[in-house]
């Protein structure tokens, strides 16, 4: 908010100093009109949030908008009744149900469903992806959970037909040999996993960031090909230009309606329109008009990472065109760098090299090959197979480079620093001066050091839903200790997926503060809500030591699950009174060997920032009793209440003995166990303890320096 005001003032001063009064007034008027539009849009979005439970409603759905993940399906749709787009999700009850849904979702149409509607949830952890805002930028603010499908009515409108066509193309392209099918789907039809997380993962890989912005490349390809075709047909230039203008929106739908695509299609449309009207515009004008149209359609679009990158790079392209290819590539990387670090916190040193080498290869060779493979390959299988082979080779090559060391975990840049970096970069492009380059490097270096050697330490309780996951980070990042990982409990025969919520919550947070390693990972016991996401940590971060309660190595179920990921991590079994160098905790429990069940929970006791801390895991009352018997002098200030606040833990005797002043409850919203138990809450209230609860506070952080610190719940208590 402050930032946007600053930018606005900056802009006003700039255009005022042009000393062209007419121009100034015109601009301010246009800006004012846009402001009204934005406010109107904001207001509308605010009012379109609704909560509807178990109601029959009609949702219009295109087949290519729905994705399946096991028996879970999700996508987007349009509701005539609510007059808005919605995010749709649902579970198939069984295989027959799933087949029936897939069968129905073969063509565009209106579904009559019984569903719940609710606003898209806002994040509850620091730096967590803001799905609510992301979808709002697409004018979507509600999600629909489909309980039951009742009736289906096919749709025969033109747009529906285009979507049907795209769906058919997706299906037939999927039949092509691997990996040609994947290349075809993503490059031609723009069908990557539409889920918001994939907005990032596609470019997280070895900085093929350009692929993202050159998604405009295929637009120019298509336009050129069409022009050649029409010239071959001896059509008049005015005629075929009109025809191309009409065809591009169709292509927009076919190619997956992505942001980069919207940008490049709007650009081509602008160019064609001005040519048609015989107006001469320079590239900067075209860029500006495109941005204006884009913002007119989606006023909040610029908060999206992809949109920022796409427009920044295409802006940079205009002003770096007169440089050599090498210099231009370097500068384009430099432009993208602040945006990339701000959003995904990391950058690969070889990005630049990859862009230099792979990008030309990509536009000259790969893209035309994919087009040929996906058109000719459908009829002559051998062509598809040959191209698939070449692509496989290309894939292996890219992976080889991607696996080379050189990834820098930078951490999240401060927004103002990001802006300054961005401006300096452009100022370097405008006029190169040594001192500017030096200043840029200094600013990067200072930001990096301040992120990586923070003066303060922290104890954080992540909001991982029903489950535990806590971070203890000592000042200057001396040790990074994680207690439990969180994880989803799976029921029955639901298939195990490779999708971990830790990726978006705790791992994302650690990355955002520049951390890609864990010194000590303590697993309190074997339950999935405590260690379910352990594979994610083991495979994505450098975990030096894994601590488990004594005897848990004999738990075959647990060991089998982590075995493929264990790599160089040292597994250490601990019991009470063990002293371990580099672990900032005393171990309080277990006293005897077990298999890692609730009553074997590892209990940790530490001292940080002037407070004593006790982490109870899911230890039951009998275990608590053991502790006060064997350690009568144990006291604490902050108690992570055992077993998510269940009445099987936190006995009166135990609370009286350790005398905690602050209680932390880590439990999921509306969990099926009804944790925390009212009895426990009463016990906490009776003792006048300060209570923090991840259900209401989201992520809870205690930030400290020396012996002092302060609490920072993500959502402040309303009372």
């Amino acid at each position, binding site marked *: 908010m402050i930032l946007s005001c600053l930018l606005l003032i900056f802009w006003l001063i700039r255009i005022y100093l042009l*000393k062209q009064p007419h121009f100034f007034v015109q601009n301010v008027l246009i800006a004012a009109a846009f402001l009204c539009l934005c406010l109107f849009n904001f207001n509308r979005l605010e009012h379109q949030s609704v909560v509807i439970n178990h109601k029959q409603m009609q949702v219009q759905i295109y087949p290519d908008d729905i994705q399946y993940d096991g028996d879970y399906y999700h996508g987007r749709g349009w509701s005539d009744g609510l007059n808005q787009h919605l995010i749709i999700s649902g579970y198939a009850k069984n295989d027959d149900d799933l087949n029936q849904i897939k069968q129905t979702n073969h063509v565009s149409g209106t579904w009559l469903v019984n569903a719940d509607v609710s606003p898209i949830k806002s994040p509850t952890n620091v730096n967590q992806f803001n799905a609510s805002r992301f979808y709002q930028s697409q004018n979507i603010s509600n999600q629909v959970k489909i309980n039951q499908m009742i009736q289906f009515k096919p749709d025969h409108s033109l747009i529906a037909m285009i979507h049907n066509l795209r769906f058919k193309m997706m299906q037939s392209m999927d039949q092509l040999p691997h990996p040609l099918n994947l290349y075809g789907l993503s490059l031609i039809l723009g069908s990557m996993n539409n889920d918001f997380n994939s907005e990032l993962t596609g470019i997280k890989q070895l900085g093929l960031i350009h692929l993202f912005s050159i998604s405009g490349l295929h637009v120019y390809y298509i336009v050129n090909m069409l022009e050649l075709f029409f010239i071959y047909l001896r059509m008049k230039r005015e005629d075929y230009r009109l025809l191309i203008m009409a065809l591009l929106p169709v292509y927009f739908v076919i190619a997956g309606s992505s942001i980069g695509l919207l940008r490049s299609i709007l650009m081509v449309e602008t160019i064609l329109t001005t040519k048609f009207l015989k107006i001469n515009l320079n590239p900067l004008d075209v860029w500006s008009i495109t941005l204006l149209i884009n913002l007119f359609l989606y006023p909040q679009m610029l908060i999206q990472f992809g949109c920022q990158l796409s427009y920044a790079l295409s802006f940079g392209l205009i002003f770096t065109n007169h440089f050599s290819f090498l210099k231009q590539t370097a500068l384009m990387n430099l432009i993208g760098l602040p945006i990339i670090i701000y959003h995904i916190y990391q950058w690969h040193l070889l990005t630049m090299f990859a862009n230099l080498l792979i990008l030309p290869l990509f536009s000259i060779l790969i893209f035309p090959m994919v087009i040929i493979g996906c058109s000719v390959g459908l009829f002559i299988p051998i062509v598809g197979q040959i191209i698939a082979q070449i692509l496989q080779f290309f894939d292996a090559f890219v992976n080889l480079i991607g696996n080379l060391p050189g990834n820098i975990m930078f951490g999240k840049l401060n927004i103002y620093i990001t802006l300054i970096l961005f401006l300096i970069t452009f100022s370097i492009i*405008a006029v190169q001066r040594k001192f500017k380059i030096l200043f840029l490097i200094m600013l990067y270096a200072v930001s990096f050091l301040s992120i990586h050697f923070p003066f303060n330490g922290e104890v954080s309780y992540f909001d991982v839903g029903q489950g535990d996951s806590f971070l203890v980070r000592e000042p200057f990042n001396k040790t990074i200790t994680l207690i439990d990982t969180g994880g989803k409990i799976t029921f029955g025969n639901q298939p195990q997926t490779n999708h971990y919520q830790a990726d978006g919550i705790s791992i994302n947070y650690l990355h955002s503060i520049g951390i890609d390693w864990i010194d000590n990972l303590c697993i309190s016991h074997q339950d999935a809500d405590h260690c379910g996401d352990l594979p994610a940590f083991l495979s994505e971060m450098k975990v030096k030591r894994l601590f488990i309660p004594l005897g848990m190595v004999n738990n075959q179920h647990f060991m089998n699950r982590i075995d493929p990921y264990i790599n160089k991590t040292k597994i250490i079994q601990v019991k009470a009174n063990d002293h371990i160098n580099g672990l900032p905790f005393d171990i309080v429990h277990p006293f005897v060997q077990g298999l890692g069940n609730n009553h074997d929970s590892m209990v940790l006791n530490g001292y940080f920032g002037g407070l004593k801390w006790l982490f109870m895991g899911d230890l039951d009352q009998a275990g608590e009793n053991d502790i006060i018997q064997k350690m009568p002098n144990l006291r604490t200030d902050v108690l992570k209440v055992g077993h998510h606040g269940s009445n099987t833990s936190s006995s009166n005797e135990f609370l009286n003995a350790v005398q905690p002043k602050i209680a932390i409850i880590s439990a999921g919203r509306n969990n099926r166990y009804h944790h925390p138990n009212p009895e426990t809450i009463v016990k906490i209230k009776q003792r006048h303890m300060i209570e923090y609860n991840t259900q209401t506070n989201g992520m809870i952080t205690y930030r400290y320096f020396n012996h002092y610190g302060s609490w920072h719940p993500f959502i402040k208590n309303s009372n």
Partner: protein
Amino acid sequence: MNITKHNCLLCGNNIKRPVTLSFILSFRPYVPPIVCNQCLNQFIKINPKQICKKCGRSGTFDHYECHDCIKWSKHSKMSFKNRSLYQYNQAMSDFMHQYKFAGNYHLRNVFKNEFSLQLVQMKEVVVVPIPITPDTMKTRGFNQVIGLLSGIEYMDALATNDRKKETPQSHLNRHERLKMQQPFYVKEQFKSKIKNKKIILVDDIYTTGTTIRLAASLIYKYKAQSVNGFTFAR
């Protein structure tokens, strides 16, 4: 969009000058372009490192003095240096013709800022423009030298002697010019103000240097500390 749409004052074509990044990032005011780059490139600036040290003529000379200046120094011992901004070539000749004789007063806008900027950079000087005859003033309507001064304080100290100019100066040949009599006098009220000042005489074109030198010698009579010249073309 029409902020970027202008026609060249000289050739009349549409000027295409894209907005630069350094301009966007600066706080400079927007100055509408007046002439297109193509026209502008026909004018050749004088490189201040390759000139005659005396009259400012472009070129390399033995002893840094051109043939004319060696001749001048035989005639008089007056200390006088001249500097000029542009070479007097065909394009400049055409331009001057348009500006002075066709009376296109607005053409001064093409060079006035650049010319005046040079004068601003000279410190502690008094700018004195070469005047034109009242007759010329009647037909032309403006002093072409003063037209090139924008935002420059100047002292209009000189006036032309009250005699009829039979032939315009530009119609005289070199020899006739060199024989010219003093055409100027210093206006009464400025006589005392010249004393101990560093004077810069400003003219549009330096051809033989006779005019500006006559004016310089006149001003030296009123005890100026120094007198030098600055002309637009040479």
